Structures are given as C-alpha cells and as structure tokens.
C-alpha cells in the first residue's frame, strides 16, 4: 500500500498541478489569476526553506576542507568569515540596505555595494577577453560551416563598430542603379543579416525549442518522464 502510494502520489501531484495550471490559461476567471499570484508567494516560501539545504551543503564542503586540512584550506576560512560576517551584519541591520529617511546606506548595504558590485562587474567584464580569445581560436575556415560562421561574424563585427562604418564609406565607392544606391553600407548589410537570415534561423530554432519544451512538459504531466523524482522505475 505505502509502496504504491510512494510511487503514485508524486506522479498524481505532478499530473494534477500540471493539468490545473495548463487549464487555468483557458479559464477567464479572476480567481485563477489570483491563485497564480498567490502561488508566487508559495514558491518563495518553499525556496526559502530550500536555502537551508544549500547552506548545509556549502558548510559541509568547506568544513571538511578545513578539518582535513586539504590543500589551500585557508581559503575555506575566508568563505566562512565572509559568510558569517555578512549574515551577522545583515541581521544587525535588520536586512535594511538603506535608511529610507536619511538616504544613508547601512553597513550591510555598504558591504554589499563595495564588495559585491566590483566583484560582479569584474567577473562579467572578463567576457571581453574571453570573447576575443574564443573568436581567435574558433574562427578558422576549416569547413564550409565554419567559413560561413566566420564571414557572418566578420561582417557584423565590422558593421557594428563605428570605425568599420567609416572605413567602409571611405573604401567602397557607391554607384546608383535605378535610383538604388549600391552597394549597401556595412551598417545596412549588418542590419539585413540580423533581420533576415538571423531571424530565419532564430525562428526555426525557437520553433523547435517550443516543440521540444511542450513535449517535455507533456511527458512530465503524463508521468512518462519522472527521472526528476529519482526513482525512474
């Protein structure tokens, strides 16, 4: 009895919630919309509880590093110090980042702003270096596909940079056929690539994704795909 309950209850729950919230879209009743917005609160509460699991996992990992004195365990202490320091300061400031009357930042807000912001933006900006090195390595005309990739990338890069536009204007003479100026500017060419072939491929890929994602959703609702519950059988 319990064995079958264990097996069927999750599947039944997935089916019921899935069908209900799919159908909700077709019911023009305000209470269903309200239900949806209430549910976002539910979600936040569940994820709040889940945060504990994350903390346990993190704690576990770094605690053992320190305990076993694994290589570079000192950095795990940095994690604990900054973690507990931040929590302590946050609690002390009652989770407020800024005093709304004075406009002054609290210690919690200050820590966040002066530590997290530069770290975050710097990590993000490393992309500038990586995109260059990825382009350098990957854009070789090895195959026909790679050549097409390379040419499209070169044209768009050229067209996006103001200097590219300017150079094109200087270097390429224009002439007029039936009142149409030819050749198009590099900016126009870039725009065309973005709006036509790019659009076509994006559209095709997106339609495929839509199909895949609907099929996946159906598989979940019908209980065909239940690997996410661990016991798939």
């Amino acid at each position, binding site marked *: 009895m319990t064995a079958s309950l264990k097996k069927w209850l999750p599947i039944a729950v997935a089916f019921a919630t899935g069908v209900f919230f799919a159908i909700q879209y077709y019911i023009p009743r305000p209470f269903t919309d309200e239900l949806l917005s209430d549910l976002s609160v539910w979600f936040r509460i569940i994820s709040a509880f889940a945060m504990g699991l994350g903390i346990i996992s993190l704690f576990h990992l770094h605690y053992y590093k320190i305990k076993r004195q694994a290589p570079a365990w000192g950095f795990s202490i940095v994690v604990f110090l900054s973690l507990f320091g931040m929590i302590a300061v946050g609690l002390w400031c009652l989770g407020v980042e*800024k005093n709304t009357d004075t406009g002054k930042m609290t210690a919690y807000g200050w820590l966040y702003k002066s530590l997290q912001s530069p770290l975050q*933006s710097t990590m993000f900006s490393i992309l500038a270096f990586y995109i260059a090195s990825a382009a350098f390595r990957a854009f070789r005309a090895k195959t026909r596909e790679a050549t097409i990739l390379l040419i499209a990338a070169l044209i768009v890069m050229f067209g996006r940079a*103001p*200097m590219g536009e*300017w150079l094109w204007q200087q270097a390429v003479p224009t002439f007029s056929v039936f009142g149409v100026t030819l050749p198009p*500017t590099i900016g126009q060419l870039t725009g065309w690539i973005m709006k036509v072939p790019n659009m076509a491929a*994006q559209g095709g890929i997106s339609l495929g994704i839509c199909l895949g994602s609907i099929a996946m959703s159906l598989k979940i609702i019908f209980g065909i795909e239940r690997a996410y519950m661990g016991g798939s059988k």
Partner: protein
Amino acid sequence: MSSFIQKFTGMDRRIIYVLISLAVIIPLLLPLNLPVGVTSEVKAVYDTIDNLPERSVLFLAMDFDPASRPELYPMAEAILHHAFRKNLRVIGMTFWVTGTGLGEQVMVDVAKEYGKEYGKDYLYLGWKAGDFALVIGMGEKGFAATYPQDHYGRDTANMPVLDNVKTLKDIGYLVELAAGSTIGTWYYYGKQKYKFKMGGGCTGVMAASWYNLMKIDWINGFLGGLRGAAEYEMLINRKAVAVRGMDPQSVAHMLIITLIVFSNIVYFATGANKKIGAGK
C-alpha cells in the same frame, strides 16, 4: 617560419588579453571621436517618446544590476534626459533587487539636472517582491494599490505624478531596460492584457533575439547594447559615456577582426588546412 606560425596560431591567450586591454584603455585616454550612425530600431524608440504629449507618463522598468550597468545605465540616462526635456512624467521601478540603487541614482541625478520635483514629475517605485504579480497588480488595481509606498517609503496614493494615471493602461510608453528575461514578464502579464506601448533596451548579447521580439510586435523598437545607447545620445544630442565608449569599441573590434583575418591567412598560407582538413 613554421615555428613562428605554430606559435601564432597556438598563441598564448594571455597575449590576446593584453592586446584587448590596451585596445580599450588607450582610446579611452586618447579619444578619436568617430561618428555614430543611427539605426531604425533606436529611432523608433526615440520617435515614440518624442511624440508623446506633454505630461504623459513614461514608465521606465530598469531590470538590470551592477554587472550590466555599463550597457544599460547610459540608456536609462539618455532616455530620462529625453523624457525630462519633453516634460514627461516618469515612473521608474525594477525587478532586480540588486539594481534598486542604480535605478534610484539615475532618476535622481537626471531629474536634478532639469529641476524636476519628486512626486510631481517623477516617481521611483523601487524593488518589491512579487515578480509578475506586480505587473498584474499594476494593470488591474493600479500603481498606488500595488505600491502603496514608493522606494523611500512615502505614500504614493496622492502624488500628483499619478494624476489621471492609475494603471498600466494609462501610461504613454513603457521602456523596459533588461539584462535578463524580464521582457517576457512585461509582455505576457502586462502588454498582452493592458495594451500599452512598449519599447526597450537590452544588453548587446540579447540584441540579436530582440530583433525577433520587435518583429513579433512585443516592442516597437529597442536600444541594443552600448551602441544603442550611443545612438540615442546622438539623437538627443547629448554625447556622454556611451558615445565616448564607441572609440575603444571600434579599436577593439578592429583588433579582433585583424586577429581573425591574420590567423586565417596564416592558416591557409602554411597549408595547415590541408593537414587538418582530413579531420572534421
């Protein structure tokens, strides 16, 4: 010779990193002032704002965080300049808690320049938990009901900035500056139902797919990346951070293009393609 080529094609990434940083920093210190052309999608946003009647409301959703600040902050700045010049009312808010301060900063800074009064000419709602439910709330019940208090904890109910503008249905234009997927929230829960006009701005990486959004009429135009911001700055004739950023952009682009072209020339000149060509 062949050792040079090998060295070049297998060049240490770190050399590229150094070149890129030089390509950015040198033009920043010694500007070249290259011209910037304006694209139609940016012009569409500009025109919509430009044609709004005086005192109508521009709703500015600033859904970005410090990490995407370099691209989106100049957009917010440029759009606000334009809006305040046109004497529009502006309501700002954000879905990204980490961007709360940025949104406030840009609104207050630009408003100060034009002597605009808080509560009368502009309003900052700040961040609030609730995600799409907030959009539904603003569409159904209105701004004052969804945000009884603004970012500073002041009551929004009787603010003159909200005169005749109760819900999302009454706004003149909504501009969504997004570093993530919040445009979907605005569209599905907002525009689809309340039929306001929407435009936007996004990071460079998202721009490619935003062309698509424009085509399917989610937005009527958008600013793509720093370039979009620079174009907007050109349109409002106020050259600032974004336009200045175009010089290093050009140089870095040209550097990357040169590297790619050169590596391909080397690749073919040495017949490396024939050796590897048998592979995939």
